[in-house]
């Protein structure tokens, strides 16, 4: 594949001198931590609650309130440069005493590093964390999915709504442990609710503002929208 002379491709690992190798037999606990963990401790002090190294991967548990700052620093600092947000997800344990963990997987392509950030959310209090959308645009859909599946609200997300289930999904948040595998409603009720949707009328108010499409909706949809029901997906 010829590369054109005027463009220099961005190379991962450009700031790292070691050549990467397949990890062989990492220890279950207590391997060498990612240097960013120490740097975080130095920079943010008490906001970094704990650092774990499990199977060679460094996990940093941080304070939820300062997550936005931490994310921005990890992205912007020239010695950290975590430019790729790989994943945002959450973990709820079967033991209901344990808090819900919100997990961010970030990669630094220039330094070839991988870091896991976690925020612990106690049950019984509102599940809210700051959004990192301002730092990494990939958080857009990842956080929406986390909200859809767990009910965790991401403060500062531009458009937090359900993404995988439909917006009026009433059964709850599927990946929570108190949500049964087959759902809360019976099969016939689930089917009835699903089929009650009118596929031609599934637009959000935002979309309906295009081309004044509101007038073209069926009557029942217009009535439901005018009473404030959200019918988008």
């Amino acid at each position, binding site marked *: 594949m010829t590369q054109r002379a005027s463009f220099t491709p961005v190379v991962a690992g450009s700031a790292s001198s070691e050549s990467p190798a397949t990890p*062989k037999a990492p220890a279950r606990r207590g391997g060498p931590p990612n240097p960013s963990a120490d740097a975080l401790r130095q920079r943010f002090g008490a906001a970094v609650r704990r650092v774990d190294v499990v*199977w060679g991967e460094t996990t940093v548990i941080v304070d939820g309130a300062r997550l936005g700052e931490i994310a921005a620093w990890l992205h912007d600092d020239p010695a950290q440069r975590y430019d790729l947000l790989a994943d945002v997800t959450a973990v709820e344990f079967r033991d209901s005493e344990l808090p819900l963990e919100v997990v961010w997987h970030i990669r630094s392509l220039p330094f070839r590093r991988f870091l896991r950030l976690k925020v612990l959310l106690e049950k019984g209090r509102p599940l809210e964390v700051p959004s990192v959308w301002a730092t990494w645009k990939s958080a857009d*859909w990842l956080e929406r999915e986390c909200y859809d599946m767990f009910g965790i609200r991401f403060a500062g997300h531009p458009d937090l709504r359900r993404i995988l289930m439909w917006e009026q999904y009433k059964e709850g948040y599927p990946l929570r442990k108190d949500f049964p595998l087959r759902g809360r409603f019976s099969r016939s009720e689930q089917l009835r609710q699903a089929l009650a949707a009118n596929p031609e009328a599934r637009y959000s108010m935002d979309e309906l503002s295009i081309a004044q499409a509101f007038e073209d909706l069926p009557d029942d949809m217009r009535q439901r929208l005018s009473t404030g029901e959200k019918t988008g997906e």
Partner: protein
Amino acid sequence: MATTKRTVDVQLSTSGVDAQGRPQRTPLVTDQSGNLLTMEAPPAIEPDLQADHMLINIGPQHPATHGVLRLVLELDGETVVRCIPHVGYLHCGFEKIGEYRQYNQIIPWTDREDYLNSPGNNVAFALGAERLFGIAITERCTVLRVMTCELSRIMSHLVWLGTTCIDIGAFTPFLWAFYQREAIYKLLEDWVGARLTVTTTRVGGMAADVPDGWVDQLRHFTKTFPKTLAEIDKVVTRNGIWVGRTIGLGVMSADEAVNYGLTGPMLRASGVAYDVRKDFPYLDYETYDFDVPVGTNGDVYDRYLVRMEEMRQSIRILEQAIARFPDGPVNTDDHRVVLPPKSKATSDMESMIHHFKQVMEGPRPPIGECYVAVESPKGEKGYYMVSDGTSKPVRWRIRPPSFVNLSAIPKMVEGHLLSDVIAINASIDIVMGEIDR
């Protein structure tokens, strides 16, 4: 890529008025004998400033959205002003069900999620589970998994190639690509018995060792496949229609691409040389000699070139893997995870207990978590597993590359035409099974 443009001048011999009576060309003012006197500028046609934008809904059932994707487009004439994608029409609760299945029982689920890259997903999950269990795999298994991953990459790219060609208008490469896929299906079928949803791996090894003659069949495939690829290349790559429809479309710059979380050929076409096989290697990929194609413009044409070259590089890796394929057992002999031979189970007490525990309860990893990422044909595919010591994971998370890649589509299609939306969508190489899980 130099494309020639031809400009043709047309002398208008008619009055220069269109069917609606509006002047179409500069009117030529002639006197009675036909001599040209002056040229007047045509009256300006007033733009319709009150024209609404159009609301167009594509999907969820549509041939060109590669699955059940719904795109709501706001069009100004034929230009896209805004695109709002809706996903979730194939959400089947994979991650939820992973919490109710043992690790070996989850492997068939990994087939169904990115169903074009089934063998590759199996390998990725097995690597993650083995990391969680803390067990090592044999040499033979490592090389066999590399072969599996690369075959899987070729399989997936062939479907992408075929369907993208159909979307842009060329039907024949689809048939050629699927004929090559049948060759790979034959290989997989001879090995594990299934064509598409193969479940080739198990925790600690593979479902079965390859039969005799399989490696020769694979070698034959590596010799015949490049010929078909060259044929498709000849027909498509420098084709004027193809080039005209794909150059300059859906451009993502390198910074944007990284910030939007794009990975795989989407990211590499935008000029970022990040490949999980090179940067965070697994399965001894650092010992194989292969190149990673990187594009420069980040448009649809570059993504096409990157994927075509990736298929050639996969053949290169396959040849090396065949050359170094060692003998030996394909499963590890750690019987906490791999079933001991059945013949021993009837005579040896320990083997019987291993059988019993693994079949009834399933192997139990220690408490911990791990995130293992591989380079799937779509991008960085990650499996994040959290174990609480029981035989079923507490959380099984699939990091879907197509999901994150697709989230950039509103950015990519803005300002393009409606037919370009289809081409850009095709270039992302989405699999709805992976996006919606």
